[in-house]
């Protein structure tokens, strides 16, 4: 396991993201409610640049003809085929088996670090 410092915490505005390169992979760092989350910039479906996708909320499982909008600012939608993923976990919203790779983030002394390896 190694922590790689990639950015200052202030480089990522609240609700925004930044893409960094780390050991040959592109990683998107998102800031939601003061916390940071890191996702591989690669959709598991056909390899689209995930971080070009829109961030929004979405409708949660509900009764028929009910619409429960939630997770505002926590959902990223692949820029190609529109698959939705939870930024906080990397999990897709349609299957437990499908997820975008996510990385642990550690913020120390105002620096964003990404944890690679076990």
């Amino acid at each position: 396991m190694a922590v790689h410092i990639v950015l200052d915490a202030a480089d990522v505005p609240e609700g925004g993201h930044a893409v960094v390169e780390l050991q040959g992979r592109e990683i998107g760092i998102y800031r939601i409610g003061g916390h940071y989350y890191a996702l591989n910039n690669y959709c598991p479906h056909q390899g689209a640049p995930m971080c070009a996708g829109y961030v929004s909320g979405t409708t949660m499982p509900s009764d028929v003809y009910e619409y429960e909008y939630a997770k505002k600012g926590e959902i990223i939608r692949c820029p190609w085929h529109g698959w939705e993923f939870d930024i906080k976990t990397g999990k897709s919203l349609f299957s437990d088996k499908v997820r975008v790779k996510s990385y642990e983030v550690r913020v120390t002394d105002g620096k964003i670090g990404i944890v690679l390896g076990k």
Partner: protein
Amino acid sequence: MTESFKVIDADVHNEQDDAALVPYLPEPWRSRVAKSGIGMAGSGYYSPVGVMKKDAIPPGGGKAGSDPDLMVKQLVERYDLEYAILTGVIYNISATHDPDFAAAICSAYNDFLIAEWLGKHRAFKGAMAVSTLDPVLAAREIDRIGGHPDIVEVIISSAARSPLGHRYYHPIYEAAERNGLPVAIHPGAEGAGSSTAPTSVGYPARYIEWHTNLSQTFMAHLVSIVTEGVFVKYPGLRLVLVEGGIAWLPPLMWRLDKNYKALRSTVPWLTKMPSEYIRDHCFLTTQPIEEPDNPQHLIDLFNMFDAENIILYSSDYPHWDFDAPDMILRRLKPEARRKIFYENAKKLYNL
């Protein structure tokens, strides 16, 4: 990993602002479009994903697909395409109402395509658009433009007023055959303007239904074209079913052949099984490829008809349901992949 092979993409959507066609239009259409735009009829179905893939919007602004240089970089060079068939989106004009206006828009677009796209890169080949609102005008346009060396196809809308095999449409097929061009049918305006309802049971509520059921339109058009004897009248005609799905084809062939055995006397001009006309004259494009949980199921399905000889790879760039050539049909045998991704299109379009 998969072997590398050459690729021809049979469905690439170049786009332009309405204003781009103004210089190519004669009056009275020029003033109309300059003042009010083309006024395409939309199907009215909302998608949260949008039609465009979000990374294809040019950095300098403008519509996705409107910048030839970005298309070359993002599609042609990245996936090493030998040719990209530019299909535009103007075929959707057939869902509007005025046949003369629709014909003028298609002519302006075809001139624009030749002047501002086809010479920009060696990979660009064009599908000329014609409106189905007046097939005689469409035939005249095919004769006007169809001989251009970079025009390799005629494209029409699958959103139409009636099944596309009806004799009313035959001048289009006659002209395409005369000019040695395949006819492509493309969805997009189903349910809009003057076209029929987008499903056989009318207007569904949501885009997910509209999009899934586009295959219905293709099934109905294909059965009409075969049974009306289009391929008997125009034996040199090739038909390309673009973006209408593939998985529905084998059971449709079985059903049609079964019915032919009993009902042949109603279509006595057909002297072969209907499915044979499909095999001999029709091509289907891959995108949006069906993605069963078990990929083997799609291969099993391909084995139920002559898939490797009648399927053409297409990406649908820059639309949201884009399929990258290195990401689909990876489990097919190398020979089948070579045909689907390259050789079938090379032969069909004389490239």
